[in-house]
């Protein structure tokens, strides 16, 4: 309970800070604007004023430009939200569409309806299971491999690393084609034959375990994250490693006690990005999960869309409520962990 309160306080706090910021900016802007129309005395004063005027106009131009694009960026989210709360009749009667719904007219029941025809919690559970195990795999394999690439000397290290990097420029479909055949050969698709064919259900169709193995194993490692974490590991000074060696600390202990804690921000970034990746996964689950009940949240969304999206009068409000249900968790995670996510992305861009 207390946690909740502090969270609300935090939100309130940041809200009031933000409005304060806007207020100050607006006040300053206004005083600058006023100063534009003050007549100065003397030539020097005139010149100073005209310079100031130009500066203010330029600033106003920049802010207007940014504001216009900020609105363009926000509109899809906002329209999604506002439509999800409208009554379906209202959507069809109101032309042009209104951009505001009164609180008492908000149809929160749309979300309930959408949760039901979406099977939201089934997809959510699948997604969490897959995200959890895939991310665990990614963390173990990338931490170990990055350590080897960053700290250990072995024959063929640079060549192998180059080989790893080269795979990053190959289109993913090259892998998907064969991986699809591989999981099929392993007997994971509920067809006959293969190592895992014993796991099929009694009626010969794919079991949940088979579907999960097919969904998770190909994504338990990532060349990109190995590259990313190796960079972070490399920044830890060599002296630390040598000192630990002198003390007789084993490599594994050093990795666990020193490197992982120091590189924790990068490891957190990897965890978040990978979880978010699973949340948005669409193509692979569509391919290898035979039954809807094994698929992930984005597949569910697309299906919910086609269910209520056809016919004479598609239920746009339910569609948008479903889209909100998929978007909202991402936005919440983003706002809570903004620092890690944005850091990761701007870093990954400078790799070239």
């Amino acid at each position: 309970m207390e946690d909740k309160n502090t969270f609300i306080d935090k939100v309130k706090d940041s809200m009031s800070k933000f409005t304060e910021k806007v207020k100050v900016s607006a006040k300053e802007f206004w005083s600058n604007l006023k100063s534009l129309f003050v007549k100065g005395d003397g030539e020097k004063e005139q010149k100073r004023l005209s310079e100031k005027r130009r500066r203010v106009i330029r600033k106003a131009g920049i802010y207007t430009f940014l504001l216009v694009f900020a609105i363009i960026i926000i509109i899809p989210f906002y329209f999604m939200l506002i439509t999800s709360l409208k009554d379906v009749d209202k959507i069809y009667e109101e032309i042009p569409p209104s951009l505001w719904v009164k609180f008492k007219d908000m149809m929160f029941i749309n979300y309930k309806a959408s949760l039901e025809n979406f099977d939201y919690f089934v997809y959510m559970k699948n997604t969490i299971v897959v995200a959890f195990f895939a991310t665990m795999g990614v963390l173990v394999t990338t931490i170990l491999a990055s350590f080897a690439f960053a700290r250990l000397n072995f024959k063929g290290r640079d060549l192998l690393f180059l080989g790893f990097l080269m795979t990053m420029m190959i289109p993913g479909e090259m892998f998907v084609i064969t991986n699809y055949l591989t999981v099929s050969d392993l007997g994971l698709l509920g067809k006959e034959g293969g190592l895992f064919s014993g796991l099929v259900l009694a009626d010969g169709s794919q079991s949940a375990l088979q579907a999960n193995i097919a969904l998770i194993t190909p994504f338990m490692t990532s060349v990109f994250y190995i590259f990313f974490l190796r960079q972070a590991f490399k920044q830890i000074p060599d002296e630390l490693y040598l000192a630990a060696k002198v003390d007789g600390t084993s490599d594994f202990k050093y990795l666990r006690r020193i490197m992982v804690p120091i590189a924790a921000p990068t490891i957190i970034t990897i965890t978040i990005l990978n979880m978010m990746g699973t949340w948005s996964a669409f193509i692979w689950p569509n391919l290898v999960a035979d039954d809807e009940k094994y698929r992930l949240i984005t597949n569910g969304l697309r299906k919910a869309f086609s269910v209520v999206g056809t016919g004479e009068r598609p239920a746009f409000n339910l569609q948008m409520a479903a889209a909100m249900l998929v978007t909202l968790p991402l936005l919440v995670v983003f706002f809570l962990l903004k620092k890690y996510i944005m850091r990761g992305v701007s870093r990954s861009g400078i790799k070239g």
Partner: protein
Amino acid sequence: MLERESNLKAWLYLAPALLLLSVFTFYPLFNSFYLTFLVGYNYLKPDKIFEAYTLVGNFKEVLSDKLFHQALKNTVVIVFVSVPISVIVSLLIAVALNGIKKLQGTFQTIFFLPYVTNAIAVGMAFAFIFNTNYGLVNQFLGWFGMDPVKFVTLGATWGTSMIALLVYTIWGGLAFKIMVFLAGLQNIDKQYYDAAKVDATPRSRVLRRITIPLLSPMIAYITITSFIGAFKAYRTVIGMFGASLAPPGLLPKDSLITIVGYIYSYIYDTAPGAISIAAAAAVILFVITLVFTFIQMWVSKKRVHF
């Protein structure tokens, strides 16, 4: 002795990643190439029969396929329209962001939003925004006295639905580029700007003569990697138009198919030989991205500056 021991240890640390990568990354690379040389390959049969080997037969089939022509045309339009526009717009936004202090963080957060969202969910929102009667875009066009345009609903043409798709693609591509450009701008040494200030250089000149030249390696890098990324467009189309890859009505199914969409349509096809067509198309996509990668290497070696 010692060296051998440390060699062994390193391979042990690498083993888990290496094992998974061998199965799901390195082997597929070779196998997908191999698949392009088979005729009538049937992977559903336990003994995996195929009829014959061919050197270029599958490639010939892909390149003479009408559907592939459509996919290539759509992809090329997406690449060469959306990338230049989004690079220019994101560069302008990054420069503007770099020039302000107040609310910089807030704007930065807003511009980052498209990156963290789900392509399918936002695609659905865009489809509704472009709706003929109930969407925002036509309302906006109405202010300028334009008649409603059918973008995504019954009666949409290839051109109008492509415009809607491009708007969505550009919108989705801004976030990443803005972040990277902004990081690049913040890395530019302040002394260049101080020197320009001393000389009272006009702003537009500072942008043209200092900012853009110093940022040019990054602009080149982002442009080329965005070209490569845009060649893989598919999810945006699924998000806006669903599995039919076309707006309902006049247009035939798959009117907005992309190269990746073409590949998947053949992966889903379980007929003998279809997987080889998918593999051949994937290799063609690979070659295209390879060309751009070489351009990228060549450009970064030349160290574009002025």
